[in-house]
């Protein structure tokens, strides 16, 4: 543990986790409440990115529809809330079950395909849900649905922003912990082996499809958890939270941070949000009005990472000793 702190990666990760752990205290001390809201979203998106990394990074399965789990988790909470069920004890398990069930269904169908077909079919299923969400007139259609935060009476009051943040952070830590075990477990090695050489793994006696389906399901469940939190964060659900652009953002985040690394999705999410927030004002400083075109800088930056830092930000923090 102490030895890990002596590497740049260990030090950077420890610092990030430390800052995240006390973020509500910092934002209060410096009176920057707005930053806590960004911090909350970073933490929630990190959970989603870690969950995508479980199949994309470790499994080599490019799912282009991961934001659908934002939608499923979010809408499960939203719809229950609209019907007066405000207890988190009911909302959250139902939302997790819905995300899990949906993951099993689309996994069972899409994992029979490979490569580009897999990308397209996961995208297609996500778009399907996106349009269904837009068609739910009773729940706001395209405009979405205002909800109130889930209630856990007597345990935690999520209307308190710091409380809600700490819950999200605790869940991120739990997700990271699980992923660290997952990656080096027998199951994780099967998933990583199948990424490296599927035919070989089959010839070694592994029914690869079943393992991938399980991985896809686990990934979807954690994605659903992120959806629950995202709905609570904004007290709002809408089809936009599961648009294909969000799915694309999640892939960019995982690639940017470092695929198949434990903390890569966390670095990627922070970098993504910081650039998204910081680039427009910086460009406006250089020339008024340029801020609007921040994507022109952001895009080439991603290309550079893809070309010169194949392992993403994680690889810039030094070599791995595994």
């Amino acid at each position, binding site marked *: 543990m102490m030895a890990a702190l002596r590497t740049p990666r260990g030090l950077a990760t420890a610092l990030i986790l430390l800052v995240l752990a006390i973020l509500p205290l910092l934002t209060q001390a410096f009176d920057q409440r707005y930053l806590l809201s960004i911090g909350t979203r970073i933490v929630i998106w990190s959970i989603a990115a870690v969950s995508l990394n479980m199949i994309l990074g470790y499994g080599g399965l490019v799912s282009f529809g991961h934001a659908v789990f934002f939608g499923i988790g979010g809408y499960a909470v939203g719809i229950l809330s609209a019907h007066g069920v405000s207890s988190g004890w009911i909302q959250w398990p139902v939302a997790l079950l819905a995300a899990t069930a949906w993951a099993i269904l689309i996994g069972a169908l899409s994992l029979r395909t490979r490569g580009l077909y897999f990308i397209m079919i996961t995208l297609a299923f996500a778009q399907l849900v996106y349009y269904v969400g837009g068609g739910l007139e009773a729940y706001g259609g395209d405009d979405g649905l205002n909800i109130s935060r889930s209630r856990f009476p007597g345990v935690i009051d999520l209307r308190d922003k710091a409380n809600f943040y700490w819950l999200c952070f605790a869940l991120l830590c739990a997700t990271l912990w*699980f992923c660290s*075990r*997952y990656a*080096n*477990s*027998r*199951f*994780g*090695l*099967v998933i*990583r*082996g199948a990424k*490296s*050489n599927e*035919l*070989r*793994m*089959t*010839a*070694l*006696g*592994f*029914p*690869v499809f079943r*393992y991938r389906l*399980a991985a896809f399901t686990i990934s979807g469940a954690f994605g659903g958890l992120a959806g629950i939190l995202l709905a609570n964060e904004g007290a709002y659900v809408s089809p936009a939270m599961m648009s294909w652009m969000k799915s694309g953002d999640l892939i960019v985040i995982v690639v940017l941070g470092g695929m198949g690394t434990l903390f890569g999705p966390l670095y990627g999410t922070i970098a993504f949000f910081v650039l998204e927030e910081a680039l427009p004002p910086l460009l406006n400083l250089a020339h008024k009005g340029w801020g609007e075109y921040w994507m022109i800088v952001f895009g080439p930056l991603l290309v550079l990472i893809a070309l010169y830092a194949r392992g993403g930000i994680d690889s810039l923090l030094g070599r791995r000793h595994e």
Partner: protein
Amino acid sequence: MSERAVTEPLLRTELLVKRYGGLLATDNVSIDVRPGEIHALIGPNGAGKTTLVHQLTGVVAPDSGAIHFAGRDVTRLPTHARVRLGLGRSFQITSVLREFTALENVALAVQGHAGHSFRFLADARRDESLRGPARHLLDEVGLGDRAGTLAASLSHGEQRQLEIAMALAGDPRLLLLDEPMAGMGAEESQRLIAFLRALKQKRAMLLIEHDMDAVFQLADRITVLVYGRAIASGTPDEIRANADVRQAYLGEEAA
């Protein structure tokens, strides 16, 4: 002869047929492998060896005919189920997990035979029940001192050895070796031949090989495949003497 006849074959195919359009890739092939023997399958390029291997391993299904392995009809069984019954294989084109070390490759092969892998929390990279047998297998094929090397960094010959170590995990009853000597130097080949000969005591092998030296040194029986058909089957001496084989296959080099 009589002793052989009473031994139940480990692997037996019955009139296997596989067509690709108008091409008869496998034409009523019936072969068997008995316990403790090396049965070599030879034939010129395009003779249908690969198609036959694919059917034996479950990559493609035959159009008709049956495959029996270890006393069971496995004709419709998926690959992983056949592996579980004791069918180990190496690949014609080297197929290892390049991003994994030699030891991890074999440890995964051991894991493949150690029950299901729906275990999410324990660290498999420190699991001695996987690594112990894996180290032993690496020693057996002579790769003991390369355990920590990435498979991608091993020489071609070493990767072939690694393949065999992986095929040996789980103690298969039959080893299906698809051109194990391909791309090996003479010295490496000789070492592998000696290794396979010693191994024969413990398990049967179906050997697909182009290297005729290796085939005639190792095989107890040889089947010659030409245009999808088994034109001859017998001991190395019988095959050498067979006029059809000399004409169809050994022609250029043996005549």
